């Protein structure tokens, strides 16, 4: 192992995987440094899961090569498995067994003795707020609980690298925040995380660097700031309290922001593109000083749709959630 490869948690060159005629992964290169969170962003069917499955040694690539923590994923699969953990997109525990039994089973498979496995399982249940559900079958768990026990199952021993495949898809906001908290705690403890997501927002919150994947290829890579810059700006949407003020507000905002206002069909609302979101507060303040009342405004970040449109020239086929941050005045 050379020094260079040791510093990279994941290094992939030209990974290819086909299922029949479908080239699910079509030449993916990755160089992911150890430490922190790396996000893989893309719509359903972009090939995210297939990439993860190859890196986690579950799938043998048709072409290309990959090293994980310095070990080849095909020739040294056992070494890779000893140091990584995988939490799949769907609850990957035995639903018929209780939460405790699932964790005891995993602990025993990691080499704990009978008694030590129970102790470890209880510790994990306690830490993940699942102690009360310990003896219930996993199939009775809520979505958030399921996700937590799923992640707990990957942490029986602390992995050096953890793959999280769409950890928050389908979760309510509270559960999603809990998963984010867990991810941050893991990073703090020294685990490198590779996380796939469909949400720009999530990649933005968690990931240090992001690869955007579409049709089995990495189409852009960088920090979230770099990606957003490549997509361009967002827009500010404003609703005035009195529709007769709209003209005046539009005029003022256009002056402050240097953009052309777009008047909506709704007689009280308008929107403008903004290059620098920091200017918006000042512009709105000036509207207030002029004695005009704004009842509501929102600053839109570029959505995943816009990122995709800008990068690929085609929209995301699956509906992406609205990334707009709403601020009520």
């Amino acid at each position, binding site marked *: 192992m050379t020094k260079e490869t040791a510093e990279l948690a994941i290094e992939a060159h030209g990974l290819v995987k086909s*299922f029949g005629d479908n080239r699910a992964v079509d030449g993916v290169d990755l160089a992911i440094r150890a430490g922190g969170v790396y996000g893989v962003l893309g719509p359903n069917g972009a090939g995210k899961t297939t990439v993860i*499955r190859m890196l*986690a*040694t*579950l*799938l*043998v690539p048709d072409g290309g090569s990959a090293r994980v923590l310095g070990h080849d994923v095909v020739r040294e699969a*056992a070494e890779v*498995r*000893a140091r*990584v*953990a*995988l939490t*799949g*997109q*769907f*609850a*990957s*525990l*035995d*639903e*018929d*067994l*209780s939460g405790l*039994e699932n964790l005891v*089973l*995993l602990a*025993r*498979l*990691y*080499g*704990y*003795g009978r008694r*030590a496995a129970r102790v*470890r399982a209880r*510790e*994990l249940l*306690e*830490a*993940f*707020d699942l102690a009360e559900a310990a003896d219930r*079958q996993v199939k009775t768990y809520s979505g958030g609980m399921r996700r937590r026990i799923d992640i707990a*199952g990957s*942490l*029986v*021993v*602390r992995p050096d690298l953890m793959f999280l495949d769409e950890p928050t898809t389908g979760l309510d906001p509270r559960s999603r925040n*809990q998963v984010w*908290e*867990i991810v*941050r*705690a*893991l990073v*703090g*403890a020294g*685990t490198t995380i590779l996380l796939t997501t469909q949400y720009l927002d999530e990649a933005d919150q968690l990931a240090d660097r992001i690869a955007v994947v579409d049709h089995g290829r990495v189409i852009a890579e960088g920090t979230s700031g770099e990606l957003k810059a490549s997509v361009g700006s967002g827009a500010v949407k404003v609703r005035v309290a009195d529709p007769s003020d709209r003209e005046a507000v539009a005029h003022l905002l256009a002056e402050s922001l240097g953009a052309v206002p777009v008047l909506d069909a709704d007689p009280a609302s308008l929107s403008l593109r903004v290059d620098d979101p920091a200017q918006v507060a000042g512009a709105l303040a000036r509207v207030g000083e002029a004695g005009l009342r704004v009842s509501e405004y929102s600053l839109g970040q570029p959505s995943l749709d816009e990122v995709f449109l800008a990068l690929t020239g085609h929209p995301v086929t699956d509906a992406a959630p609205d990334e707009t941050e709403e601020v009520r005045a």
Partner: protein
Amino acid sequence: MTQLDARVTAVLGGAERPAPASPVASSVAFGWRAMLKIKHVPEQLFDVTMFPVMFTLMFTYVFGGAIAGSPGEYLQYALPGILVQTVVFITMYTALTVNTDIEKGVFDRIRALPVWRPSMLVGALLGDSARYAMASTVVLTVGLLIGYRAPGGVLGVLAAVVLLVVFCFSLTWLWLIVGLKVRTPNAVMGTSMMVLFPLTFVSSVFAPPETMPGWLRAFVEVNPVTLLVEAARGLMNGNPDVGDVLGVLGLSVLLIAVFAPIAMRIFNRKN
């Protein structure tokens, strides 16, 4: 109550890495899982034992008189066969379990673990063998209650059950392949019924082959289930046929030799 992230950090700090589980330890752990399945999903056992209990009662009292002269005499003939049929039918659940594991993602999680890979299959088979033993007990108990008496005694019955479990353990490797290859649990059910119904009915389970037309008898005589039934019947009746018993054991070895490597290969390369 401390914050979730603080607790997670603490529990991560507490994770000492134990020495990796030995192949035996991991196989036993998977076997334990199979036993827990029986505890949590007892209907899995119920399905496959009620069916033969019904068969035992129906065939004995409905057809018994016509086939063998009296229900009692027919029971003496059919019970070893029904025992075999029951347990051979249960082997199918191995395919169902593996298939469900793949569907639910359990399979991926387990394959990503640093354990001796065959232990998942070996453990499942160990658990299944326990299930075979339980189902055998149910059938034998019903038989005893309605008047079955084994001339071969306890030892003969025990030997028959052991032989049956060995055969089914070997046959299970074939079901593993079905479980790994077939798309959905429902398709597994369909496939297995198509195989198991003819295999167990067109044998000497319910009627002596001598009464069947020649073309059918030709199949019955090469049907491995017939060999198994004859070996078990011999042991239970107290006139064991060494040739039959050795035949079953040889067949078992052959099944493992052929299907275990194929199953392991598919298991390792599974997409």
